[in-house]
């Protein structure tokens, strides 16, 4: 008898590397739901609040000078939202759900869960710059500025909650430069990796959807 097991694909990414597009592609290929900023819809629904309120604080670093922690309670709204998202992911994983998750320290938060496969997608600076200019219709200085800001925020957010650094190869199963194979080629490569991992680890067990 074949035992069903869950698959959780965690994708960390540099801004402009196309990591999010790759994560969406992988979700389609494996028929899994994707948890990214859309996770806020679910949280807003659960808490019966407006999603727009939550969006302002999503994946943002905690500001040490404008927040304080008292007996485990934090006044930082970024921190409170991050904890809600971590709880949301853990609940799904506990329930045996399979999904793809983008960022949100998921490689650390979900560490220890069976079926977790973690990636970090990076890219060459010039390729990322061109992509950001194309996708957002920005000039070169604007795109460079946006990349620097977004990456700083993601790095600060990640490093606040995780011992291992953002983008450090030791923190992920695989770090991949999307500029080498392109977005589709990278997704193809990652799909092969995931299928090989599943076959190796579970001897061809089925994925639980």
């Amino acid at each position, binding site marked *: 008898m074949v035992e069903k097991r869950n698959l959780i694909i965690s994708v960390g990414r540099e801004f402009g590397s196309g990591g999010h597009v790759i994560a969406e592609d992988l979700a389609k290929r494996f028929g899994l739901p994707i948890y990214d900023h859309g996770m806020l819809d679910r949280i807003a629904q659960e*808490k019966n609040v407006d999603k727009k309120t939550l969006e302002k604080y999503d994946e943002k670093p905690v500001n040490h000078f404008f927040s304080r922690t008292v007996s485990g309670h934090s006044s930082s709204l970024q921190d409170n939202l991050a904890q809600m998202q971590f709880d949301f992911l853990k609940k799904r994983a506990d329930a045996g759900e399979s999904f793809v998750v983008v960022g949100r320290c998921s490689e650390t938060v979900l560490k220890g869960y069976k079926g977790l496969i973690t990636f970090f997608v990076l890219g060459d600076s010039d390729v990322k710059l061109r992509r950001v200019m194309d996708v957002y219709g920005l000039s070169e200085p604007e795109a460079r500025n946006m990349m620097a800001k977004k990456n700083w925020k993601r790095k600060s957010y990640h490093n606040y909650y995780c011992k291992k650094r953002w983008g450090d190869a030791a923190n992920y199963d695989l770090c991949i430069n999307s500029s080498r194979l392109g977005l589709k080629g990278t997704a193809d490569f990652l799909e092969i990796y995931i299928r090989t991992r599943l076959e190796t680890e579970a001897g061809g067990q089925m994925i639980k959807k």
Partner: protein
Amino acid sequence: MTAQVLAVIIFIVMFALIVADKIERHIVSLGCGLVMLVLVFGICMRSEAAAAETLSLQSFFVPNFWFQAGETAETSTGINWATIIFIAGMMLMVEGMGHSGFFKWLCLEIARAVHYRTIPIFITFMIMSAALSMFIDSITVILFLAAVTVELAQILRFDPVPMVIAEIFCANLGGSATMCGDPPNVIIGTSLGYSFSDFITNTGVIAGISLIFVILFFYFSYRKELLAGAEGRGEIVYPNPREAITDKKNFMCSSLIFIVAVILLITHAQTGLTVATIGVFIGALTLLTAGNSALLLLKRVDYKTLLFFIGLFVVVGGLEQTGVLESIADLIARLSGDNAMLMVAIVLWLSAIASAFVDNIPFAATMIPVIRSLAAAQGVDLSVLAWALSMGTDIGGCGTPIGASANVVGISVAAKNGHFIGWGRYCRHSAPATVLVVFISMICIYIRYF
């Protein structure tokens, strides 16, 4: 001179690390306290006596520590063990009360008594927040009150944020009314030798007058927001307060212990029992009546806060022993000239502004030796400066989301339930209310003591 510079550097590093919030604050204060003992007292001053005075272990063996016959105004320096023992005892009592469901029961009973109408709940919860905070630490009060407010808001369909903000403000205001209401007051009272009745007849009166203005202020500020969702409630199933009680026997015991604690605190100037003795007695009584839960209650005590206090007192002791705080007192004296009214204003507003942004506990602990020096050198009544410091540190913290522990806990409880209170929303009404209360305090002090 080297000792002074080192002491100031250690103090600044401690403050910066507390603000940075990267390392837990008790580790920061204990670490800085240890560095202060080794570098300042050991290497620079080579003074065993100064170190011993700061550690203040001898205070346990002085009869006055446990029992004070008659009116005494003895002041202490270094680690204020009376504060630590008292807070530990009260922590045990509060844990026992929370464990039995006392706070939730009280909130729901009051909501029921006002027939679950939004505005009366708003006003009674503000008064309850202030009244409970007079005897119980404001963190615990807000922890339960904010949670019940959010729960009621869901049932009664109103926005809980205005109510939570007003409750936070009133918890801080209530804390300023008594010696045991807020940690700065416990430190001021035990360090300068003031009793419960000294506080209630001075800061208590100011807090009472301010509460009337604060209720009116928040009522007019939030009335529309609160009433917005109250219409069209439809079918509502109201919560039963009795269901909040988890253990009837424990509930009765903890309610009785709370009443005993209030009586002992109110009468401690007459009975001669010090707050340290009251803390030990209340803590022991809670443990004895807790039965099997005693170990659980002991485990739940916030030891980190107690350790934070110990480290903090050592660091402030270092500043005091090296004469740094005397220099600050000289500076304030020079700024105010011989004008005692100006001196009070400086202490009050400086404390309020500083407490709005930094932890008011280290600030109060630092300022106590400063006002003591000011009173001694300038001939100003120490008690007047103490009331100004108390009101400034307790109320200043209301102004921003990070100013006081109750603010942080209230905002966190609301956020966990999806109600995000940012700086803008918090400060819009709380900052003007803070200025209003500090102003009222200044006027009250001027009218009564000058």
